[in-house]
């Protein structure tokens, strides 16, 4: 029994006892009962006062919410379920986005004064066709340290591996200059960090252990400092142990061309001697700087770039320094999508709030008669408000809880599966402030839209405005989602210079024992012959690099006798039949063949043809590969279509293919194309290679389709995420419209009856009602489309990952929202126009 019922029972007992007394004094049973009731006064009032006196308010509110849920489930269950679902999607989606963004943008760089930390890279126009920027050369470090007054700390770092004591496997190590420790704020829990001067070729053999390596190998021995450890055959002194939570850059987190191991065991001093000959040509060090407090980024950049002019006599002044905030660098390719998704999440949340507000307004309007009666019976405004709020807030609370659960689940799923294009997500969890903020936005708007009509005693608010906003927002968001999705599909299905379907990459190594180059060549040819003999294989070929997995050898490409250095290009070695197997079209000339053996021949990419032989036929002309010690020359025999070698969003670089017999084929990638409808020949190919004595590198066996999926993963993720937001927005907007129209129609039941009695058909009535209800929606959709086109233009200028917008997609989005809205409105008037006119007129 609920507490209210207990109080009521007690009062009823009182009336009964009083009536019995009165009856004993000679009143008739009816008279006695009436007098007893009169003497008691208002039962509801005393029940309520009693409840307040008992301090039962909150318990009762909980009970009434519970009852409200039961009531909801009984009445209109689908509608309420949908409302809760959209609120959950809205709150959950926003929470998920903000949590991931918080982890990747705010939490990914756990170093103090994050806003003053930058990664320094150089931009060299000569290499720009291959890389927008490059890691730095170790030779800059000493000069930069001396002259960059805007820099408080500099740290030069790269990774290596060291083999502890004898036969064990090598362990990953980081090589850093002493500045790394003050810059990152990482201080050893035992011992000391590197001292100033402990760097360069004369650095002492000292090593710091990471916490887990110390635990795992030395079982957390507290007296480890001062002992020595054999590494790569030399003896190193252990000077300290780093804390458990120390975070180092991983993967490409310091930019393209730098690969840090996923986990670090040892940290040793940077021993690179930047002053040795040729050092400035090696761009393979990461450099982090911490600016002085108050120093301008541009000032630091100018100082760094100024110093660069003392290097590379042949490059200057064409070498530039660039500073990227470490937060941005650490977030990898996810940075821009995360910013955009954050914006989309806010937009979606606003639309959900506005739609929920319109649902609440319509709900209150539909209850105006009920509220008026309750009010006339003496219910206080407070109690009416509590009841109305109780119902609406039940929906909001259910949505908020379900949203938190969904976001939590999604974050943990993302953590488990950690897609390659996202930086490590370990430690990511539900970011509670984000959830609280999203949920309170929904609560606040919902509560305001419940309370305002009550407090103004006018239960009809401006719902047209809300419908307009929801429709406009939904269209804009849907258009954005549409663009991202179309963009993703276009990029995925674009011609990247090869046919990914039915194409598998395999990798075999020639065993170290086979030193003789001729024997290696024969081995490779036998393996290819055997693989081609497998019945399900359509074609097979080998190359020292595959599309989309980076460059093999970078050297200038130029015509003999040309002025200057030429442009940096990518030189690759392939077997005959490579272009056919990869699906790379030869646009002119021919493939390599047996007759070319012993001759210097080359196949160039279209871009080389375009840039080096403008307006000429390159076939039969020569091309030069200037190396440090010699210049190789080859005759062009063919032109192949351009191939993406690294990022899909980057232009295809200059590519020159040489026949494989000009190089040692120690480790080659084999491309195998399966015949359509035939079984996967991978295992048979591995057996064929291993039968010839080759070693299989299993980590390089994957379908080429997977490579494309990975390369377009960020876009897919981004697009699908936004599509989810758009669907949520449209669904809530439709629910808001549905509730509003249903209320409008129910208020006009009598009018509809009159119309029908006068001969209007259900079709005409429906059309009339739809036209009136949908006017704000159509206006909103048109406004949303215009806004989307405007914003789209703005974003395309701002963000590199979005290709030019498409008015057609915005149109389709507006149309889709309009159709969904019409369907929602029609659903809510369908019953009204099928009503019997007489019953309808009586309804008022």
């Amino acid at each position, binding site marked *: 029994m609920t507490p209210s019922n207990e109080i009521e029972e007690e009062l009823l*007992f009182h009336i009964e*006892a009083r009536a019995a007394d009165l009856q004993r004094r000679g009143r008739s049973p009816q008279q006695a009962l009436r007098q007893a009731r009169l003497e008691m006064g208002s039962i509801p009032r005393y029940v309520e006062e009693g409840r307040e006196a008992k301090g039962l308010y909150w318990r009762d509110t909980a009970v009434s919410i519970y009852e409200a849920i039961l009531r909801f489930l009984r009445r209109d269950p689908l509608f309420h379920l949908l409302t809760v679902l959209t609120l959950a999607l809205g709150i959950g989606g926003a929470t998920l986005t903000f949590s991931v963004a918080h982890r990747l943008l705010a939490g990914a760089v756990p170093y103090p004064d994050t806003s003053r930390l930058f990664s320094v890279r150089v931009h060299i126009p000569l290499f720009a066709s291959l890389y927008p920027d490059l890691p730095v050369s170790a030779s800059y470090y000493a000069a930069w340290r001396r002259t960059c007054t805007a820099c408080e700390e500099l740290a030069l770092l790269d990774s290596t591996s060291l083999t502890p004591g004898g036969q064990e496997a090598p362990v990953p190590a980081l090589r850093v200059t002493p500045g790394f420790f003050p810059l990152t704020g990482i201080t050893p829990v035992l011992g000391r960090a590197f001292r100033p001067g402990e760097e360069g070729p004369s650095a002492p053999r000292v090593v710091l252990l990471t916490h887990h390596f110390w635990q795992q190998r030395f079982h957390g021995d507290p007296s480890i400092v001062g002992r020595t450890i054999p590494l790569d055959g030399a003896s190193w002194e252990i000077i300290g142990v780093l804390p458990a939570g120390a975070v180092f850059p991983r993967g490409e987190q310091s930019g393209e061309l730098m690969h840090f191991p996923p986990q670090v065991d040892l940290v040793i001093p940077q021993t690179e001697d930047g002053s040795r000959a040729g050092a400035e040509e090696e761009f393979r060090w990461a450099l982090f700087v911490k600016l002085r407090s108050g120093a301008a980024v541009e000032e630091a950049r100018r100082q760094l770039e100024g110093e660069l002019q003392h290097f590379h006599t042949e490059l200057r002044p064409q070498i530039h320094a660039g500073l990227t905030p470490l937060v941005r660098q650490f977030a990898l390719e996810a940075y821009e999508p995360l910013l955009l998704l954050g914006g989309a999440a806010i937009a979606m949340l606003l639309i959900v709030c506005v739609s929920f507000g319109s649902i609440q307004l319509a709900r209150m309007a539909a209850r105006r008669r009920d509220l008026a009666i309750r009010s006339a019976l003496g219910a206080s405004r407070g109690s009416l408000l509590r009841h109305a709020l109780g119902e609406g807030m039940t929906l909001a609370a259910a949505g908020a809880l379900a949203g938190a659960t969904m976001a939590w689940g999604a974050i943990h799923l993302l953590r488990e599966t950690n897609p390659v294009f996202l930086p490590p997500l370990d430690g990511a969890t539900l970011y509670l402030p984000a959830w609280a903020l999203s949920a309170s936005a929904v609560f606040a708007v919902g509560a305001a839209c419940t309370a305002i009509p009550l407090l103004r005693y006018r239960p009809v608010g401006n719902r047209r405005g809300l419908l307009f906003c929801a429709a406009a927002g939904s269209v804009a968001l849907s258009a954005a989602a549409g663009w991202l999705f179309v963009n993703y599909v276009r990029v995925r299905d674009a011609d990247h210079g090869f046919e990914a379907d039915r194409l598998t990459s395999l990798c075999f190594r020639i065993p170290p024992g086979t030193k003789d180059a001729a024997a290696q060549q024969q081995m490779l040819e036998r393996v290819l012959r055997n693989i081609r003999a497998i019945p399900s294989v359509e074609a097979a070929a080998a190359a020292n690099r595959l599309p989309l997995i980076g460059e093999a050898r970078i050297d200038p490409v130029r015509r003999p006798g040309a002025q200057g250095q030429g442009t940096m290009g990518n030189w690759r070695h392939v077997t005959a039949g490579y272009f056919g197997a990869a699906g790379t079209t030869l646009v002119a000339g021919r493939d390599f063949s047996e007759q070319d053996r012993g001759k210097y021949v080359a196949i160039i990419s279209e871009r080389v043809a375009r840039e080096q032989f403008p307006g000429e036929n390159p076939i039969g002309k020569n091309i030069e590969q200037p190396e440090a010690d010699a210049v190789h020359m080859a005759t062009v025999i063919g032109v192949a279509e351009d191939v993406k070698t690294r990022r899909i969003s980057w232009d295809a670089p200059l590519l020159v293919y040489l026949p494989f017999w000009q190089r040692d084929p120690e480790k080659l990638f084999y491309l195998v194309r399966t015949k359509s409808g035939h079984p996967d020949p991978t295992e048979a190919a591995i057996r064929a290679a291993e039968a010839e004595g080759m070693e299989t590198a299993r980590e390089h066996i994957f379908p080429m389709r997977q490579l494309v999926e990975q390369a377009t993963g960020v876009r897919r993720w981004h697009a699908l995420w936004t599509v989810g937001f758009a669907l949520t927005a449209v669904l809530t907007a439709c629910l808001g419209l549905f509730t509003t129209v249903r209320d409008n129609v129910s208020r006009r039941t009598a009018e509809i009856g009159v119309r029908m009695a006068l001969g209007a058909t259900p079709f005409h009535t429906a059309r009339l009602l739809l036209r009136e209800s949908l006017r704000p929606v159509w206006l909103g959709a048109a406004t949303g489309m215009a806004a989307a086109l405007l914003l789209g233009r703005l974003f395309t200028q701002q963000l590199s990952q979005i290709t030019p917008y498409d008015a057609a997609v915005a149109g389709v989005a507006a149309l889709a929202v309009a159709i969904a809205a019409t369907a929602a409105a029609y659903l809510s008037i369908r019953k009204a126009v099928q009503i019997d006119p007489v019953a309808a007129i009586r309804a008022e």
Partner: protein
Amino acid sequence: MNNAIMPGTLDLLILKAVSLGQQHGYGVLLRIEQLSGGAWAIEQGALYPALFRLEGRGLIKSEWGVSENNRRAKFYSLTPAGKKQLRLEAENWRRTVELMDLALGAEPA
């Protein structure tokens, strides 16, 4: 004469009525009327919020039982805290009455 009870005295009267023995709400009402010789009438519904308030303060306690006419009813009785409170408030009341007497009995000097 006005036969409504003085504001603020209902709680004390309830405590007194309950102190005379376990009672249900209606019984408390009858007892108060009886104590005043029928001079005071309480607005009957108002009794209950007062009862719940006293129960909430831990001065009286209640339990469901069966009334003389075999109906389920809630019975109230005094707690030790209630006994103390009754003594204290009764003492206060007497002092107030004395002082009021004194004050109202004063003659112009």
